[in-house]
């Protein structure tokens, strides 16, 4: 104890750290299972850093040709790049190498997946609202960076599959007007595949992208501390407070423990489940290919978008080639992710609400937003499914044309249906909540009244439980009023139309008056 005191004092006298400890040490964190999704992302990133550092000590990011002489017999004597050969060495000649490769790959898959789920949680609870719009955008950037890290990392072993992925990137780049040919040429240092793309991707993968990612992650966490975490509505929780556990000791113990659990689960998966067995694919060669191979899951939606383009979308105009079969899917995906990125600003504009919001909403209490989210998820899911169109066709013995046409139709109908259904479900759930708040739960007990009628006895809810059901934001559609010059602008009309679309169907929260009047009927 004396030693720790002395050490703490020594450090404080040189850093003023005591101020930060006082400020942050007892900071309050609210608790909810869904808040752990972001933690999973953070911890899998740490696991990626640890396992990735191990891998860099053995990986040789070079495309110079070597004859493989390692211990994997089927490939011995085969010509391949040094990158591929060193990846095989990591897998077959270095103790724990295969384990670390698999930890790294599984952690990367979990990283992207947990960011995606975390974003869905934030979206569906409206946790992106003021003052957290900027942090939403930073988180979005992190998602893009995570996918870029995934793709560059996937390419590094220079095996048949990853080379084919690069070939597709090359083909897509070439489809861009004016600059495409040059961008591909510069990236590959000449013609595809060339001899430099792996070392270049390596620099991106282990230096540039992680540096940006860590900076953005730091900012993301800093803003979370500044904004303080949102909490779900509940008794005693208001928009002005945070109810939860202090960092020291409870949150630190739980979060630290959770880190080790995530790490442990990833190692467990990696010890049992093989991933990316490059030795089965062989080194990159532009000629062979096997059917039914799949990219890592998060690339699927882009691959699917390419597959859904109808035949013939490429034109030569004025002597230049316009590859709309590439540009249109890229534009659609671009539009989709831009909408995701700016959604908080759109919703803020529609509601006109400039207050700070620290209560995470239950998805049902924002039916239109939830329905928009469901439509977006469906859109993404259809694109993702499209990346397996060939597998679906062979598995279910359908024609590939039939599968593609169905998916093309679903890409537009699916989101629409998802929107309508989700909105109805949300409104129904809200109605049910209202019922319960005012009349209590159905107890299932039927009694006969003296008059002979039968009624079901309702179990009243506690006031704590009721608060959870009735405390939510309610918005009315915007009424257009002429501005100072007595005019109604186009912007105002659009805003009013959107507002109507958002809020015309709404279930207002139950009120005290209603409880007093209608408690019994």
């Amino acid at each position, binding site marked *: 104890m004396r030693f720790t005191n002395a050490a703490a004092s020594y450090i404080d006298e040189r850093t003023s750290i005591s101020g930060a400890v006082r400020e942050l040490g007892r900071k309050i964190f609210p608790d909810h299972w869904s808040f752990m999704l972001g933690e999973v992302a953070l911890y899998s990133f740490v696991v990626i850093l640890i396992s990735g550092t191990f891998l860099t000590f053995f990986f040789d990011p070079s495309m110079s040709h070597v004859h493989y002489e390692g211990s994997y017999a089927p490939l011995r004597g085969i010509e391949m790049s040094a990158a591929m050969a060193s990846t095989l060495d990591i897998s077959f000649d270095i103790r724990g190498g295969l384990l670390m490769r698999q930890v790294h790959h599984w952690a990367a898959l979990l990283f992207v997946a947990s960011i995606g789920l975390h974003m869905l949680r934030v979206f569906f609870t409206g946790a992106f609202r003021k003052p957290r719009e900027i942090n939403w955008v930073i988180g979005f950037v992190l998602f893009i960076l995570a996918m870029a890290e995934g793709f560059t990392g996937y390419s590094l072993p220079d095996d048949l599959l990853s080379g084919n992925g690069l070939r597709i990137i090359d083909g897509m780049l070439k489809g861009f007007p004016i600059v495409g040919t040059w961008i591909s040429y510069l990236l590959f240092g000449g013609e595809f595949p060339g001899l430099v793309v792996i070392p270049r991707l390596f620099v991106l993968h282990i230096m540039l992208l992680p540096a940006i990612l860590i900076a953005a992650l730091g900012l993301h966490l800093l803003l979370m501390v500044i904004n303080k975490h949102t909490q779900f509505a509940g008794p005693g929780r208001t928009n002005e407070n945070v109810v939860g556990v202090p960092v020291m000791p409870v949150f630190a113990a739980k979060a630290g423990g959770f880190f*080790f659990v995530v790490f442990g689960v990833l190692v467990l998966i990696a010890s049992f489940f093989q991933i990316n067995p490059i030795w089965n694919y062989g080194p990159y060669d532009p000629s062979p290919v096997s059917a039914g191979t799949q990219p890592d899951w998060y690339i699927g939606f882009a691959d699917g978008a390419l597959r859904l383009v109808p035949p013939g979308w490429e034109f030569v105009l004025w002597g230049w080639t316009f590859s709309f*079969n590439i540009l249109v899917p890229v534009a659609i995906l671009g539009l989709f992710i831009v909408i995701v990125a700016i959604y908080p600003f759109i919703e803020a504009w529609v509601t006109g609400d400039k207050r700070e919001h620290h209560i995470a909403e239950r998805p049902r209490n924002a039916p239109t937003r939830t329905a928009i989210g469901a439509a977006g998820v469906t859109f993404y899911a259809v694109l993702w499914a499209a990346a397996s169109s060939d597998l679906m066709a062979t598995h279910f013995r359908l024609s590939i044309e039939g599968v593609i046409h169905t998916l093309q139709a679903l890409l537009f109908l699916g989101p629409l249906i998802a929107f309508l259904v989700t909105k109805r479900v949300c409104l129904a759930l809200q109605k049910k909540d209202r019922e319960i708040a005012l009349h209590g739960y159905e107890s299932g007990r039927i009694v006969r009244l003296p008059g002979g009628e039968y009624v079901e006895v309702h179990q009243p809810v506690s006031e704590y439980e009721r608060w959870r059901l009735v405390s939510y934001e309610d918005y009315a559609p915007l009424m257009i009023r002429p501005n100072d010059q007595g005019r109604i602008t186009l912007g105002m009309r659009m805003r009013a139309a959107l507002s109507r679309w958002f809020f015309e169907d709404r279930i207002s929260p139950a009120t005290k008056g209603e409880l007093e009047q209608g408690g019994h009927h």
Partner: protein
Amino acid sequence: MAKQDNGESSAAAGSAVENHGAPKASSGTAVVASDAFTNPGLPPHQPRVTDVDPAKERQATRRVGGLFLVSILGSIFAIVAYIVFPIVPGDMLSVRLNTLFLGLGITLALIPLGIGAIYWAKNLMSNHEHVEMRHSTRGTEETRAAAARVFTLGNEESGFTRRKLIRNSLIGALAVFPLPAIVMFRDLAPAENPATLFKHTMWDEGTRLTLDPSGAPIRAADVTIGSVFHVIPEGLEEAEHPLDEKAKAAVLLMRLDPEELNEAEDRKDWSYDGIVAYSKICTHVGCPVALYEQHTHHLLCPCHQSEFDVANHCEVIFGPAKRPLPQLPIAVDSEGYLVAQSDFHEPVGPSFWERSA
């Protein structure tokens, strides 16, 4: 029922955070009912068994300690596994055992450590809920005024807006200084113009068609009807960049019943007795088009399922590709081997901007 509040007063009841005299933020179209329920406050604290029963508390303590001990054993196990399960070169089982036991050891070190900490937090640390107040994210009016003063002073003392010459030339210099960095990226690739490079392949008049990957020349007589050969140009291995050349020059050779082959007038002599050669590089984004369906004469690209009809000059019958696979004109040399008549007559592979220029 809820009534719509208008204007400033609507940010009422429990919605606005503490404001340091800042203007009240607009609540937009939010509606606050005048008789909304009021927050009942924190429910009473429920003690856990470990709070009231000392025996349970001791048990929980032992569990946490036990889990941490298991973790220590796991770490030791991992080190032992590293040594006792070495990799024997060429023995796949040894790789698997090394991965498995090393992995299990590390797992055993990590998961109990994590669970122990969480269990400790949940059962033994205080579970009282704490309340901390939020503050408006916006700085106090005083702070904001002070910040504004910093900029004003900075401006005054430097004369940034007053000395227009300095300001504008500074902006100009800042805008121009990154340009050399952009120019310097030109040498990422060699000096040649890519558009011309992409338009030519290794194929030339008299280049023999050889098997991929062995490089053995192909005799026309050996190509039976219905068969498909994966072909590379002779001498590919000796090329300066074999993979780059292969990425453009890979070819599929098929023989159809000449009856079934619909050939354009000007291409009638590009084939030899029903043997046709087409680029293997998909005209969509460049995957190798490797799947041949013999009875339909269709080629299928595994990447995005473009289908090409070999009987009709590899026209696209389905999928996102637009252009037919380019045909390689072939003939037979004096020894009976298949040779190219020339290079392809159009660029192979994915489209690019300058393709038809």
